[in-house]
């Protein structure tokens, strides 16, 4: 703690030379309005208020955007959606504005319109309309939040995403572990496995339609793939070998994984729909935890071929393997960021296990967390935040999120102890 304070102090003294953290963009989030009138209009305004509050909650989670508290009594007319009174929001200190409307349709569904404005310049930044089921207002709110976040920061929003993790309950031999999935705001929480077998490392397909994970059912760890809509499940490969560490390619067509052949762990790739695995590494050490670059042309992985776990980058066909970590510690569990700029990793050193980031060329290494029991980092779709697990001295684990800006890690609310988080891309 003291050290962190000192760091902040030093950064402050260093001034702009080291790039000060830009202040968050203040955004006004007035209540959504409705073109409907009468009883239906009131009903739509009520839905609009739900959406508005969800947008505020979404945006408040971010480091870059700061929403003004919406006031239910201060709502605007329908024509104002496309012609806002910018002077009013300027006076309130807002740099941006997200407005919109909810309209009932004859088929019982709703049209939700969202508009994002630059208040200073008085011009529209983005707009988008969605047709949703009457109970899907939360989804519409996430899409509005994403529209605003992307218009302001240029990065994909993380609101319409899912988080998978391993829920842990009980102690000792009686401990059960289940794969759990929830929306990134904690809603729609559900379990995918019953807890009879130990399960590990859930990993989403890019649009969160499928999930790969490791199960010890049958006595040996092996990768299984489950379809989240149908619940249908299958083994990733036909072979009986120990397989683990699955990770989808960014386009969802392939899955990287590790497989034991005798005493040797190597990296393989297999079509996501099933097929014959192709071997990508052949070193006699433990090669594992492979992750594609966003364009699918390269792969980062860990290998202990040189005597200790280190990060390596290779081409997608396995050629050109090159070590990139030289920081005097052990480096493991890498994942390439969705924007391609960074690779996150677990650093094992005298301080224990901590989460950090490094450029794909091996420069710019930075440690983001305090440890000593951190592992399993997973990028947000925005490439600005990372989920990871922290195991305490009592052996209990929780999931935390940390932003690249150096702010402190925050614990994610989960019903039970939680490990192995995975953060999906934006759903469609």
């Amino acid at each position, binding site marked *: 703690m003291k050290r962190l304070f000192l760091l902040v102090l030093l950064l402050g003294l260093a001034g702009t030379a080291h790039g000060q953290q830009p202040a968050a963009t203040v955004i006004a989030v007035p209540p959504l309005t409705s073109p409907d009138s009468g009883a239906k209009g009131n009903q739509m305004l009520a839905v609009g208020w739900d959406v508005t509050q969800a947008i505020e909650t979404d945006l408040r989670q971010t480091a870059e955007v700061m929403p003004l508290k919406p006031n239910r009594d201060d709502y605007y007319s329908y024509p104002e959606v496309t012609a806002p009174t910018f002077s009013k929001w300027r006076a309130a200190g807002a740099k941006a504005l997200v407005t919109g409307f909810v309209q009932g349709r004859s088929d019982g569904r709703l049209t939700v319109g969202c508009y994002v404005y630059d208040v200073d310049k008085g011009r529209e930044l983005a707009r988008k309309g969605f047709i949703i089921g009457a109970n899907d207002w939360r989804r519409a709110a996430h899409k509005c939040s994403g529209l605003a976040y992307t218009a302001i920061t240029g990065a994909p929003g993380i609101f319409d995403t899912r988080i998978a993790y391993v829920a842990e309950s009980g102690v*000792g*031999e009686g401990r059960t572990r289940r794969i759990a999935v929830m929306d990134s705001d904690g809603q729609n929480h559900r379990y995918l496995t019953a807890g009879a077998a*130990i399960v*590990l*490392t859930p990993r989403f397909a890019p649009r969160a339609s499928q999930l790969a994970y490791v199960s*010890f059912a049958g*006595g*040996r*760890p092996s990768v299984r793939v489950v379809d989240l809509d149908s619940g249908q499940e299958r083994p990733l490969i036909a072979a009986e070998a*120990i397989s*683990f*560490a699955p990770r989808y390619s960014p386009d969802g067509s392939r899955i990287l994984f*590790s497989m*034991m052949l*005798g*005493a*040797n*762990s190597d990296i393989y790739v297999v079509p996501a729909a099933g097929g014959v695995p192709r071997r990508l590494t052949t070193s006699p050490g*433990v090669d*594992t*935890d492979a992750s594609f670059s966003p364009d699918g042309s390269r792969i980062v992985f*860990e290998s*202990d071929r040189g005597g*200790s*776990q280190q990060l390596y980058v290779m081409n997608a066909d396995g050629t050109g393997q090159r070590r990139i970590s030289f920081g005097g510690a052990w480096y*493991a*569990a890498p994942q390439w960021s969705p924007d391609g700029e960074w690779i996150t990793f*677990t650093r*094992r050193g005298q301080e*224990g*296990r901590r989460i950090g980031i490094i450029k794909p060329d091996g420069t710019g290494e930075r440690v983001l967390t305090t440890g000593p029991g951190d*592992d*399993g980092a997973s990028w947000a779709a925005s490439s600005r935040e990372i989920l990871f697990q922290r195991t305490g001295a009592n052996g209990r684990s929780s999931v935390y999120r940390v932003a690249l800006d150096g702010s402190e890690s925050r614990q994610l609310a989960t019903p039970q102890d939680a490990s*192995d988080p995975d953060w999906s891309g934006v759903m469609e």
Partner: protein
Amino acid sequence: MRKTLFALTLLLGAGAAEAQLPFLKKRTAQPQQPVLQGIDALRADFAAQAGGTTVYYGAESAILGAPAKTALGLQAAWLRRHPEVVVRIEGYGDSLDTRDHALAMGARRAEEVRSHLLLLGVPATQVSTTSWGKERPGLGRAVTILVR
């Protein structure tokens, strides 16, 4: 490197009674209940005569040391005397390790033990391997359960 030791446990049919029963039946044609009791007796006999069911590795190592090889020699001799017994070799990783590397290290250690047992003349059909990585409680507890 810290002198922590990590275990690799040789499991006599534990938790896999169903898997072994057909095998035992086929060879000995004994009824089920006595066979189950027999497994417990075999476990105790194995533990006693082989000097334990666990061999140890150094940190981050999958290389068998001299004490481990001595223990495996006794275990191999016992297994050759009991060709009807199938064993599963379960490897463990370091709790301080990252999850997937620990899983691979456990598998490597199990595989090294299997290879060594085969070298000492134990038929391949008698031994299978798996890894628990860092996913099971500490070594002491695991051993207690096995030799009970």
